[in-house]
């Protein structure tokens, strides 16, 4: 039987993963990393009466993915999809999908992957090549979203949802949004001093959000992490890495960043801005309805804020890191044809993409922005057209951890800047290697 070795390897790995987990459990006091809303994850959503395949997707923005699945099920009553909601945090999502694949359980047919995971999953042999579907999305989807769906020039996923950064600013304090970081610094500091509030809030905690905030400054200073062929690190070419780090260090020292910036995540920043405590904020579009005081929120800044593209160091254009999800087809799926059909539909069906836009989750289809009558969505379309995909190389997560481990202390003045930048450059090189 030709499948025998496969099966033997299967049990070995399944046992191995379980064994590692068990030893770790033995070796770790009594805990798992804390998850949010334990009830909301790890369960099929029960949207289909007779599901034919399973879509594993993040439990954050649950309602949106449910609505997309419902739309599919209405149109394809014989080929219903079951949504399996994973944890809302990225690490736990990855772990759940890895476990499904590594143990060869193969329960998930479609995998909703964060834009930075494509290289890793492709390199591990976990997802199918979708290269033959390239013509269907090229020119239809955002370029950055397509970039983030490929590894080594081969397409392994199809775009689904996107995300880009807004610069939020107080229209009662600032007349014109700044186009350079220096201008932002000066106007922000002046207004903050006058009002007795903070100048700038963003994502300064030591996590992926910090990496995103740093990379946006790095890119906007003309930096690139890798050369075009994705063979070498170009992190230290030019002075972009230094420029971005200097700006952050100075912002921290001079009090330009709000107090507690170094432990702030998205919602911490949003809460401060919403309470009228900051002049500028870097955040994702999700904050707009909340700041406007919709959905039962109290907002001190309703009507007194607007959004603009993030500035750059040169004053030209804008640079945002690209967020979002791509859908991939699991190698282990027994319903690959159906899964491919669904993935393509989610990427290219105007109705499906409109569901996202209706919930303020940025779609990846270009046409969704062309017909936009919402000025914020239109602006987002412009921002996303210039957005940078974080490189979906196999070692991206390791690279991100090294950036967090070195640049974060350096920005706080706890570590020498040169050695921190050097460490990131080395890690960027390592992230490309596949052994």
């Amino acid at each position, binding site marked *: 039987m030709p499948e025998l070795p496969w099966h033997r390897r299967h049990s070995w790995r399944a046992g191995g*993963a379980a064994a590692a987990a068990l030893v770790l459990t033995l070796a770790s006091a*009594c805990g798992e*990393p804390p998850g949010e809303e334990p009830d909301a994850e790890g369960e099929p959503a029960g949207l289909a009466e007779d599901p034919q395949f399973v879509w594993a997707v993040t439990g954050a923005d649950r309602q949106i993915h449910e609505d997309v699945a419902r739309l599919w099920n209405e149109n394809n009553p014989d080929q219903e999809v079951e949504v399996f909601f994973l944890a809302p945090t990225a690490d736990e999502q990855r772990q759940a999908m890895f476990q499904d694949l590594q143990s060869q359980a193969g329960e998930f047919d479609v995998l909703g992957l964060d834009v930075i995971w494509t290289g890793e999953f492709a390199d591990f042999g976990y997802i199918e090549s979708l290269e033959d579907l390239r013509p269907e999305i090229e020119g239809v989807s955002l370029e950055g979203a397509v970039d983030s769906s490929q590894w080594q020039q081969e397409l392994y996923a199809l775009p689904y949802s996107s995300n880009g950064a807004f610069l939020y600013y107080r229209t009662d304090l600032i007349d014109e949004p700044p186009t350079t970081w220096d201008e932002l610094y000066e106007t922000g500091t002046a207004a903050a001093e006058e009002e007795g509030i903070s100048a700038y809030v963003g994502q300064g905690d030591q996590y992926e959000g910090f990496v995103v905030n740093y990379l946006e400054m790095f890119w906007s200073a003309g930096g690139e992490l890798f050369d075009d062929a994705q063979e070498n690190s170009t992190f230290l070419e030019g002075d972009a890495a230094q420029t971005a780090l200097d700006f952050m260090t100075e912002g921290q020292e001079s009090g330009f960043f709000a107090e507690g910036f170094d432990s702030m995540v998205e919602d911490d920043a949003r809460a401060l801005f919403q309470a009228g405590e900051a002049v500028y904020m870097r955040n994702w579009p999700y904050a707009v309805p909340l700041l406007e005081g919709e959905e039962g929120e109290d907002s001190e800044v309703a009507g007194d804020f607007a959004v603009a593209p993030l500035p750059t160091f040169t004053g030209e254009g804008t640079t945002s890191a690209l967020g979002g999800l791509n859908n991939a087809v699991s190698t282990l799926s027994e319903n690959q044809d159906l899964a491919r059909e669904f993935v393509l539909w989610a990427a290219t069906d105007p109705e499906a993409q409109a569901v996202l836009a209706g919930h303020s989750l940025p779609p990846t289809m270009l046409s969704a922005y062309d017909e936009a009558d919402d000025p914020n969505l239109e602006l987002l379309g412009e921002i996303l057209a210039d957005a940078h995909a974080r490189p979906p190389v196999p070692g991206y997560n390791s690279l991100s951890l090294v950036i967090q481990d070195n640049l974060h202390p350096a920005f706080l003045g706890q570590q020498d800047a040169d050695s921190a930048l050097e460490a990131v450059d080395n890690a960027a090189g390592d992230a490309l290697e596949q052994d």
Partner: protein
Amino acid sequence: MGRVFLAPSLGFMALIALFPVFYAVGMSLYNIRGFQQEFIGGDNYVRALTDPNFWNAAKNTLVFTVASVSLEFVIGMAFALIMHQVFVGRGLTRAVILVPWVIPTAVAAQVWRYMFDHNPGFVNAVLGTEINWLRDPAWAMVGIISADVWKTAPFVALLLLAGLQTIPKDYYEAAKVDGANALQRFWLITLPLLRPAIVVALLFRTVDALRMFDFAYVFAGYSNSVATLSVYAQRFLVAEPQLGYANALSTVTFVIVMLVGLAFISRMGRHMVGDVARKEKR
């Protein structure tokens, strides 16, 4: 005959307790990337022992263990002595003192993290300081240790209190008659007779501290600043999935915990058992 009857349960124990350990050791000899795996012998162990981040994690674990266990012991002992004196409402006192220990560590860690955070910045406000508790490695360690001491000192106190109550009061009365002062009574009667309880408390706490995960992870994620051995192993199981290396790291952690545990039992435990044996001979 007894052995024959015991054999099935021993075998079952070995299967569920030891089998996963050997499995993990087996996996640690492979380089595993997705569906591919390759036998690489001890390379993962060589990598661990030459990995500065591993040694950093080992150092963090050691600092945490020594500091938290000694503080917990001293504070727990003080608690126990106080509770031993109080007779009115002792049951209630004991219940109250155990509350921190009952709270799940992950929850407690989250609460402490919020207290140390800048917003709302409770600890800094109370102390009148401007310390970056979460992001300055030394202070983050201080924060983690205080949180752990808060949580576990009561548990140590309870173990020691149980021991205190087994010491007959006659000894103290006799010592008083002989003119021993309070310090002498504590040093010559309480401490030696409390030894079994002390050994148990220290053993539990040390082994627990060596595999500490929750506080470090909640305070600083996978950041090297306060990562312990467990956090570092978890990093390669989840954040940078390299199952072979993760298994090597958890095996090393397991071996360290086991060696320390055995050392405890053989050094302090044998004395204890020896004392009992000597007494029985008499």
